[in-house]
């Protein structure tokens, strides 16, 4: 009989498994991917101090530690339904029903789509798809491609593609529509890019990020921006160019682009078609939280966390009895934060099971999440702390009523 079922073997789920198994809980982790690790598997970044963050190694380390503690990890199993029962939860999976007293949902995030005309052509994929194909499957996604969408994830993954010998023609903006929102507006993209400039190797960009602190300078920078853009790791990043359409008959052959004004509107007469054999679309991430909704958990809409998130407190408990959440399902942050949250969830669940004799490790772990968040290399949103506080407050109010 298991005490805890964890859905998702990403950094959050595996860390929770380790923390709770250490306290003596019998833990099972299920994941629909064919191997454990979640999105860690594709991650490969150089930190500002030059050290590589190799997600494959991190995933292997976590998996081994969990298995060593007796955690059962089952891959290739999708969870599609949850119902509450008298003794906890009945979890419907592609390998039958599992009954368990306590449940942790750590399903991570999914990529938001940006439907550029032509995006269903073979050869068009999300930026995360290219990451997994390159670093996990070890297959090049094409010879020469265009990245549509300029954000922290697409910049980081573009570098990963380049390392693997894939040529990127350029990174450009999506068409400015109600769907793409600020992702199609040069000024807003410029601002968010300045926050990640510390990752760029070029001294000029690093200096630039300090110089361009004030908003009038950013405006100036966008309006004076050379239409040829600038380069990071020799990859041209063009903030004044947008994709209008992906062209091809049976697969991607090119992208129709145009220069755009500072507000994202195309400038007449600047259209051209550039050749490419693949296109990566980067629409940002949002929490993959459907299972929490099915479980009856109340939600909050918090844009700085990536959208709709299940209500939960600092101990990763939701208002639904026996239901916990951790990692990107609670808001988009990097893997290290997901791990720290997983540890909190694991300890908190051990406490609920009466296995945590001393509360100190739990409060230390809660503190640790804040420290890791503050020191994170990759931050997906500048208002993450305020967003977290808002969810905490809403959860407290919900429980009080």
């Amino acid at each position, binding site marked *: 009989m298991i005490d805890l079922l964890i859905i998702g073997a990403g950094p959050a789920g595996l860390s929770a498994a380790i923390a709770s198994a250490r306290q003596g809980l019998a833990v099972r982790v299920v994941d*629909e*991917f*064919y191997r454990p690790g979640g*999105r860690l598997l594709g991650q*490969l970044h150089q930190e500002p101090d030059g050290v*590589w963050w*190799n997600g*494959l190694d991190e995933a292997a380390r976590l998996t081994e530690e969990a298995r060593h503690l007796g955690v059962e990890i089952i891959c*290739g199993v*999708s969870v599609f339904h949850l119902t509450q029962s008298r003794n906890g939860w009945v979890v419907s999976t592609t390998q039958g029903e599992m009954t368990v007293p306590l449940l942790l949902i750590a399903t991570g995030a*999914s*990529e938001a*789509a940006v439907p550029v005309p032509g995006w*269903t*052509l*073979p*050869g*068009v*994929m*999300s930026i*995360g*798809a*290219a990451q*997994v*194909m*390159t*670093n996990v*499957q*070890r*297959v*090049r*996604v094409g010879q020469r491609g265009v990245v549509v969408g300029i954000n922290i994830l697409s910049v980081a993954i573009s570098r990963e593609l380049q*390392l*693997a*010998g894939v040529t990127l023609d350029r990174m450009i903006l999506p068409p400015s529509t109600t769907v793409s929102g600020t992702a199609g507006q040069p000024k807003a993209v410029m601002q968010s890019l300045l926050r990640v400039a510390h990752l760029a190797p070029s001294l000029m960009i690093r200096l630039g990020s300090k110089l361009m602190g004030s908003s009038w300078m950013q405006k100036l920078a966008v309006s004076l921006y050379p239409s040829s853009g600038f380069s990071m790791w020799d990859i041209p990043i063009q903030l004044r160019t947008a994709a209008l359409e992906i062209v091809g008959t*049976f*697969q991607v052959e090119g992208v129709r682009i145009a220069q755009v004004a500072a507000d994202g509107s195309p400038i007449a007469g600047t259209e051209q078609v550039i050749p490419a054999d693949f296109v990566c679309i980067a629409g940002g991430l949002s929490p*993959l939280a459907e299972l929490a909704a099915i479980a009856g958990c109340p939600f909050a809409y918090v844009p700085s966390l990536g959208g709709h998130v299940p209500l939960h407190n600092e101990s990763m408990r939701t208002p639904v009895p026996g239901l916990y959440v951790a990692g990107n399902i609670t808001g988009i942050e990097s893997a290290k934060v997901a791990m720290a949250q997983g540890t909190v969830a694991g300890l908190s669940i051990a406490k609920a099971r009466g296995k945590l004799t001393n509360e100190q490790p739990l409060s230390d772990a809660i503190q640790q999440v804040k420290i890791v968040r503050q020191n994170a290399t990759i931050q997906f949103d500048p208002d993450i702390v305020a967003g977290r506080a808002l969810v905490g407050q809403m959860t407290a109010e919900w429980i009080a009523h």
Partner: protein
Amino acid sequence: MSQRIDHHPVLGSLGDRKQLSFYYNGTVYTAYEGETIAGALLAAGVRTLRVHEEKGTPRGIYCNIGHCYECRVHVDGVPTVRACMTLVQEGMQVNAGSLLPTPLKKGGHGA
């Protein structure tokens, strides 16, 4: 040039992997152990995994992590198998599926 990244400057070399044969739409392809159907086909230059059931237009992978179902194929007769999440097995029969009739739709291709 092979599309496989056998040597990677940071991740290192893959070393020897067991070779497998499988079929896609009746043609035999080579995969290595640990490759997904989508990965092995892309390495062979095949980007189209299926045709849209109603329009017949070609489709490939989109998310590559199991979320979008763009990559659904028939595997050994089982429909709606995600090519991005399924490892190739020796002798596996993968099919793209086909255009399905839409008799109730006005202006449908069956008309």
